[in-house]
């Protein structure tokens, strides 16, 4: 008998080992295919990168889903698979950017962490990332770990991001799994959440949202435990700590957490009062207490940051502008975006994008039918999941308003928490019935949602590498910009102020302690036919010591519509900078071309000479140029 048991245990261990080795093989192949797609994109000769990328990504999803459906039995099994999912989900971002920043936000956060490490304090950079210093949680974590470990800031940042990516997925698994007492539903909710538009790239970047999202999810986990099981030391302690950390990390996620808790409290109270008991249950009272504590912590912090936060949020929260944009859309007078307008995507990705909404509606429809048939009453958290899920559809019209599209895309990360929880509840009973077609159908639906999510959530310029293109976010950096940034690393310091265009600004910002700026008041330095005393006054006021010009300003219009700032008068006018405007810097006594590459020119500005010129009421044209500025 013992021998039989031993043989059975050995066979079970062998099988387990085989299963995991098979998963490693599948995921390795998936990673190789994703890497191959990136390589194909770099060559820029065909659109083969799209099918190769999705074959790789879907292979990874399929391998992990197979483990969830066929292999995993215990919560611990699911947890292990989801850890792998979280780490594997970092692969596209890491392959795309390598071990260096790529997204705009990443440069800003890295610079903030660099300044924090150098000065010991979060420094507000007026022209770069002013709000960041008020929410330095990610940078504090990164800098502290870098101090203790002696690793580089960026490497620590990557470790923090990988941890956050895993923690987010495990958080949703725990939230749904514990609440419904079904690890399987939790695992499917986590798998579904991984299809959301932000997960593969946006929530894999070194940015405060990446850390804030798992904090939000785990706050809900601890709140759920508190209301369900009572106030244990670990639950209350964890809740308080996470509730205190969240408003140090990110403003919008803190505000949305409050909204989610409010919906949950409101739903719980309503279900209690209008339900069979007609009075508040103990669970609801505990939830109200937990939510109140979180509300006090978040509101107190947001109020403290008040004016800075309002300055940052006000352009997005301009209700009258949003209303006018919506009215324009309704009456067809334009001003909005078109879906996939200008995106160079294959037809099947665009088709998947358009199928996203009907498929999600279909899933919600099935969930509604399930609720009708279910004998158990719903509760506050389930209602909250539904509200978040429905919120996704309510945001869709706003996606057509240009000024709101970015905020809308970011909001889908939150809406998908609800969609994933609802979908988790639909998929498990669906697959429990016999029939291979069910497995096949689920696979197809998940694949379409994953493709659609990524295609609507990320620009191909960020998704894939490619030839360096000036004026294009995500593609404008390369070895030539690195060369300019390296020059600044060697020649500039914290007393320097560099006037520079948007596209190379971030790479310079993380290479030097200099202040990197692109204020709209200086746009005339490049655009005006001649420099006047007002422009020189701005150069003095901003204490500019260097200016960087991309000579391609004379030949191309940037994809964003502006070179410096959306507030500059030349923004969206599609006007080229005349060549003479960039040639003139050899003709002023306060400028000197100090370095040049194929496309970039670094011009030194002598502030003392500028002041002398001001006293002499001149704009400082060199005598040899008095007869005419070269090229003018």
């Amino acid at each position, binding site marked *: 008998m013992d021998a039989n048991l031993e043989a059975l245990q050995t066979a079970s261990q062998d099988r387990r080992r085989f299963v995991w080795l098979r998963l490693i093989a599948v995921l390795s192949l998936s990673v190789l295919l994703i890497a191959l797609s990136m390589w194909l994109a770099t060559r820029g000769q065909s659109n083969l990168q799209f099918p190769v990328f999705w074959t790789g990504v879907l292979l990874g999803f399929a391998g992990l889903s197979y483990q969830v459906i066929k292999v995993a039995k215990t919560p611990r099994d699911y947890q292990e*698979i989801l850890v792998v999912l979280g780490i594997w989900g970092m692969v596209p971002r890491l392959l795309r950017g390598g071990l260096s920043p790529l997204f705009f936000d990443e440069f800003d956060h890295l610079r903030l962490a660099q300044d*924090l490490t150098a000065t010991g304090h979060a420094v507000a950079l007026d022209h770069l990332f002013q709000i960041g210093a008020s929410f330095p949680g990610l940078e504090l974590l990164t800098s502290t770990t870098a101090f203790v470990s002696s690793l580089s800031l960026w490497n620590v940042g990557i470790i923090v991001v990988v941890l956050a990516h895993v923690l987010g997925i495990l958080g949703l698994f725990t939230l749904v799994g514990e609440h419904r007492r079904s690890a399987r539903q939790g695992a499917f909710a986590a798998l579904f959440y991984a299809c959301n538009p932000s997960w593969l790239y946006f929530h894999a970047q070194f940015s405060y949202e990446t850390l804030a999202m798992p904090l939000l999810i785990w706050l809900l986990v601890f709140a759920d435990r508190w209301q369900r099981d009572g106030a244990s030391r670990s639950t209350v302690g964890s809740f308080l700590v996470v509730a205190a950390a969240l408003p*140090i990390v990110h403003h919008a996620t803190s505000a949305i957490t409050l909204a989610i808790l409010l919906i949950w409290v409101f739903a719980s109270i309503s279900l209690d009062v209008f339900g069979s008991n007609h009075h508040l249950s103990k669970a609801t009272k505990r939830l109200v207490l937990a939510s109140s504590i979180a509300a006090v912590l978040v509101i107190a912090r947001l109020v403290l940051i008040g004016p800075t936060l309002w300055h940052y949020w006000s352009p997005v929260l301009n209700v009258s502008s949003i209303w006018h944009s919506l009215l324009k859309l309704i009456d067809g007078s334009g001003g909005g975006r078109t879906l996939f307008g200008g995106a160079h995507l294959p037809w099947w990705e665009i088709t998947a994008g358009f199928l996203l909404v009907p498929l999600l509606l279909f899933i919600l429809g099935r969930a509604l039918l399930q609720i009708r048939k279910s004998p158990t009453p719903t509760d506050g958290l389930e209602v909250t999941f539904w509200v978040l899920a429905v919120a996704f559809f309510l945001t869709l019209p706003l996606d057509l308003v240009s000024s709101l599209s970015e905020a809308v895309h970011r909001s889908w990360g939150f809406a998908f928490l609800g969609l994933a929880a609802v979908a988790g509840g639909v998929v498990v009973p669906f697959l429990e019935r016999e029939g291979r077609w069910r497995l096949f159908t689920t696979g197809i639906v998940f694949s379409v949602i994953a493709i659609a999510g990524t295609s609507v959530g990320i620009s191909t310029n960020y998704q894939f590498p490619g030839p360096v293109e000036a004026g294009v976010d995500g593609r404008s950096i390369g070895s030539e910009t690195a060369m300019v940034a390296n020059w600044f690393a060697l020649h500039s310091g914290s007393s320097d102020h560099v006037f520079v265009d948007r596209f190379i600004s971030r790479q310079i910002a993380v290479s030097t302690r200099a202040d990197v700026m692109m204020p709209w008041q200086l746009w005339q330095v490049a655009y005006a036919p001649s420099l006047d005393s007002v422009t020189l006054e701005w150069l003095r006021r901003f204490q500019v010591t260097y200016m960087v010009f991309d000579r391609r300003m004379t030949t191309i219009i940037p994809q964003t519509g502006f070179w410096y700032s959306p507030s500059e008068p030349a923004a969206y006018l599609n006007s080229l900078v005349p060549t003479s405007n960039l040639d003139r810097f050899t003709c002023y006594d306060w400028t000197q071309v100090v370095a040049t590459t194929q496309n970039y020119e670094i011009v030194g500005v002598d502030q003392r000479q500028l002041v002398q010129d001001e006293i002499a009421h001149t704009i400082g044209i060199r005598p040899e140029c008095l007869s005419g500025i070269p090229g003018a």
Partner: protein
Amino acid sequence: MMATRGWERILVGLSVLVVVTYLVQALGGHLNTATSIVAVICSLGVTAWMLRGQTIWTWSFRGLVIGLAVLGVAGASHLLLPIAPKSSSVLISNVVVKLQGRNLLVRGMVERIGVHGPIPIVIGGGGVMVRTVVLNSAPSFSATLPVNLDDPCTANVRIQARSQTVLGPFVCSDRSQ
């Protein structure tokens, strides 16, 4: 329970670290190696106290190990496939123009990315004889150019390497000599 206790501890630990380091700063302290070590010890202490009495390592490292193996494949792919976009360029910098009698001594540096082999550098300008200096592996160049101008410091020196040009006038030093 969903067997995620170990990861929960990591999250709580990270949150404590955020709060403690924020308080260090808010109370006027500086974030440095010493305060970081204190903050990490505080985080570990608070987390351990909050979760005391519970088995710490209930979670399996297997998922983490497999995940790291996958990242290893990603790293190897990145090394094997030239994924990062590259361009070739040279950067002309540190140009100094010095007057020596009736000659101009022009010196400067050329950094290169993705450019191999000799680089011809053409130096010249209005009233200045044109010279070509071939730069092999050294990063700096220099040339002496006869000038036929009354004031050599007014010469508009141009330095051209590959397709980029640095335009003068540069600061003309030692004018008194």
